[in-house]
């Protein structure tokens, strides 16, 4: 059994952003030497996400628009208080809730050294509270 973990940094450039990371995950799979197994992709933050959907701009826009409709920035959130461990106010509850509902990880099979996914499936890194440098994990398990 081979287990590998890659920590990948990504610089987001907007307050909210949808970034296609499929090629980077495929590269990690191919470099790993694993022929058959699983790959797990996971964000390391609680105000960003990882999700899978069809890779077309209209859907990218719809996700952000309707997540914002569900969790408006100006809603009444308990999170808006001083966080002593951070030395600052928490006023990004909307970003946290988008991360919760959109998910923070995805998993795909590896077969014959390649990522196996549906033809329409795209893996996205979701920024809900940028711009920031972010880190996501790609963990590969197999043989």
């Amino acid at each position, binding site marked *: 059994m081979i287990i590998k973990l890659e920590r990948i940094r990504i*610089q*987001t*450039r*907007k*307050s909210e952003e949808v970034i296609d990371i499929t090629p980077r995950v495929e590269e990690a799979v191919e470099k790993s030497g694993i022929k058959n197994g699983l790959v797990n992709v996971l964000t390391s933050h609680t105000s960003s996400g990882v999700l899978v959907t069809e890779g077309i701009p209209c859907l990218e826009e719809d996700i952000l628009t309707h997540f914002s409709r569900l969790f408006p920035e*100006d809603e009444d959130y308990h999170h*808006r*208080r*001083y*966080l002593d*461990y*951070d*030395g*600052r*106010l928490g*006023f990004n509850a909307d970003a946290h809730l988008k991360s919760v509902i959109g998910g923070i990880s995805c998993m795909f099979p590896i077969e014959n050294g390649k990522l196996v996914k549906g033809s329409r499936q795209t893996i996205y890194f979701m920024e809900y509270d*940028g*711009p*920031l*440098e972010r880190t996501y994990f790609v963990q590969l398990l197999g043989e």
Partner: protein
Amino acid sequence: MIDFHTHPVLIQEFVEKYPDYERAARQVFNIGNNFQPLETFFLQMDVAGIERAVLAPIDCRRARKNAVSSNEQVVELCRRSDRFIGFASVDPLRKGAARELENAIKTMELKGLKLDPSLQDFHPGDRRVFAVYEAAAALGIPLLIHTGMSWAPETPLELGHPLLLEPAIRRWPTLSFVLAHFGWPWVWEATALALKYPNVYLDTSCLYYDSPKEFFQFVFSKQIPTTVIERSLRNKVVFGSNYPRVEMRNMVHAVKSLVLTEGCLNKIFKENAERLLSTP
């Protein structure tokens, strides 16, 4: 737009370069956010519509062991980008502080002075501090001075009271005092100083509970009427975010949520800061 109040405390490139940089951020300034590449600073400015930002160091080495950013670090950042406006900080109780300030302005080309009585542990009315006020007045630079509550641990509230500055404000009428954080919670006192004295300005970087918009709606409509800013202080208020304690875009949105005319907002976001930063 100009942000008159930011702190370069989370620059990733400085963590390895300067051994005390991380301690200063975590234990002195008290901020827990991840360190970020310098590029993030510029991107944060971009999404907020900020063209230039004042970088404010705090020389609190005597009181807190480490400076919260040094003059040298600010100069280094200013050399990387003309979007930064570097301020100097000196410990006003240290011998030779006035000369150190003169050197920072004339040799290091820094544009203003930043002091924080709470973090630097000095009384703003202490006569030993006067030499630094005198030097700043002679140099024709603005003084951005912390007033109001500080989030930094072990800092006494009372040293942030705006009225402690009145003797200095009266004694140096040519020195522009920019009272940071609008003096919160002493907003009326800070407002009174700005109304009374031509050399007193206020920055908007106050946020102590709720969200920026909620806090501004309360402070600038219930604590003091919004009309005070629109009618009487339109030439005396500058935009400051206190980034990275708060993201610039959140503070920009909060200021814009107030019922202020476009002319007044232009002064707050740009014209007043430009006037303060123009050399005499």
